[in-house]
């Protein structure tokens, strides 16, 4: 099992667009991917599940990976969060 934590920098939190991208990206890996936000937990490959985490700006998320490609998945998803998620722009967007 591999893990990393990520603090949401996006001022809009986990809105639909990053959730969608995250889910799509996570699907590449065979490992099981779970994301925790406090007491809530989500399947990292499912959009609605991720959105229902209610992750806001500053939320600390814990990503955990179990499976054959858990190392790669962990590394790649962390990179994804850092690069592709970013700060977001504080307007009404996805």
């Amino acid at each position: 099992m591999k893990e990393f934590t990520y603090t949401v920098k996006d001022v809009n939190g986990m809105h639909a667009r990053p959730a969608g991208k995250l889910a799509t990206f996570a699907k590449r890996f065979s490992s099981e991917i779970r994301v925790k936000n406090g007491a809530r937990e989500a399947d990292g490959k499912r959009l609605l599940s991720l959105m229902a985490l209610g992750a806001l700006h500053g939320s600390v998320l814990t990503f955990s990976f179990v499976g054959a490609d858990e190392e790669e998945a962990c590394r790649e998803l962390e990179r994804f969060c850092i690069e592709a998620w970013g700060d977001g722009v504080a307007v009404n967007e996805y």
Partner: protein
Amino acid sequence: MNIEKQSSRMFRGVGIGNGCACGVLRFWESQVIQAPVLPEASRGEDAETLRLQQALRVTGEHLHHLREKTARELGDAEAEIFEIHAMLLEDEDFLDGLAHRLHTGCTAEDAVRQTASTFGETLRGIGDAYLSARAKDIEDIAAQLLHALSEKGTERSESVFDGMPNGTEPYILVARDLTPSQTMGLEREHLLGFVTMEGSSNSHTAILARAMGLPALVGVGDLDAAMQGCEALLDAREGTLTVCPTSAQKHAFCERQGRESELAREHERYLRSLINKPAITCGGHRMLIYANVSGAEEALSAYRNGADGIGLLRSELLYLSSERLPTEEELYQSYRDVVDRMGGKRVVIRTLDVGADKQLSYLALPKEENPALGFRGIRVSLEERAIFKTQLRALLRAGAHGSISIMLPMVIGVSEVQRSRAVLEECKQELLREGIGCDERIELGVMIETPAAAVMSAELAAEVDFFSVGTNDLLQYTLAADRQNPRVAALCEENEEPVLRLIGYAAESIHRHGGWIGICGEMAADLSLTQRFVDMKIDELSVSVPYLLGVREKVTECK
């Protein structure tokens, strides 16, 4: 239609945009999801599954169509709504929910209603405004699925929704709420604006209204359908709807309204038409309009807004956000991501530009009294050779897949360039020996952001392929004034001439050597300086994404 002489009534809501409209009210009842639920008999799980699959397919196609239409008419950002909808339609939890209910004997319709209802509640239950607005997305999709399941929906039709008011009189649409697909389905020729009784500024309606340039008012509360056909004034700026206005109210309103909104809309349309049009001045000087970005996301946005290339990719993002040094592979991937999105257009990447004030946790640069005048930029790279090589190798490799130009920050003299070039050569030779593809003829340039670089530009021009002027820093160093210091910030604004002359001199130097020069600091977006830059024959202006089209327009107006 019985229109009595009613007294003027005013309603308040959240205005979207600053426009206004004067017209008659037309109420619209959305029939689909409010339809009474008649008890229906299931046709059997297999049959219902088939019906649902068909409905999912048809709806998916419709969403695709809406996405294309919206992208064409309004832009990619607005079209994303439908991409989200398509994703929700394919979400496993949603599909599992549907399958489960079909298995327990529901009709396809009931399965859709119940599943949508559950998910909607879950999202609303979190208590976040944004997520509650997304609950509406689920409703929208459910409505489309239900329509596809109904008899009307089995035909292929352009306008999925009936009940649209007809008539050639310009009108203001009133609805309880509008979903994105309904909003995009609206015929816009006679539509002046719309009002929804529910909804928030967080909603799709709001986003699309802004993009369409139509004034709108959301969340006004219940409106009596008896007001159908009444004249009304919609003022988005004030957030009011005035029904049956007095002549005095009308007069004041129409005067204000007349010119404002039409001009704004025209200008917006004109700007969008400029995307991908070359920026050529009246005198025939062609300028490239590039974008300053920090990553692949922004690069894509830049591309969509017609950027001719990337004039500055700040490479620090990956370094700053990491707990440890990024590997060559990670750097290579991130540069590839940007290059891939730019479709072969030039991407100028600035090498690592950090210092005591822009720290990397793992480099531990010692605290300095004067970080702006300290150990930063190229100085760090030349000392931290391993880090520099890793970055250069990644750039050389990514360059094989597109057009990358390497730019060195904080340069003050020729020796820095020569030393950097030596390291670059070393990396190139290594990669060739290792049999790894790289761009052997990658461009190398420097930022002109120190007075020294500007003054020595003749000598520097002989060593590089291009210059890019970082006007923010150049201004500060030249005027010896800190832009962030409120006591002297005004000096920066009032004394641009010395910097402009330095830029002019640098431009002459590089042009004499057959190179090119761009400007990537804030001055590039300053429209009052564009003509001056044209006169200097600056080859490229690089601005942040929101300014791309405005600068392009300005250049075409220059002499």
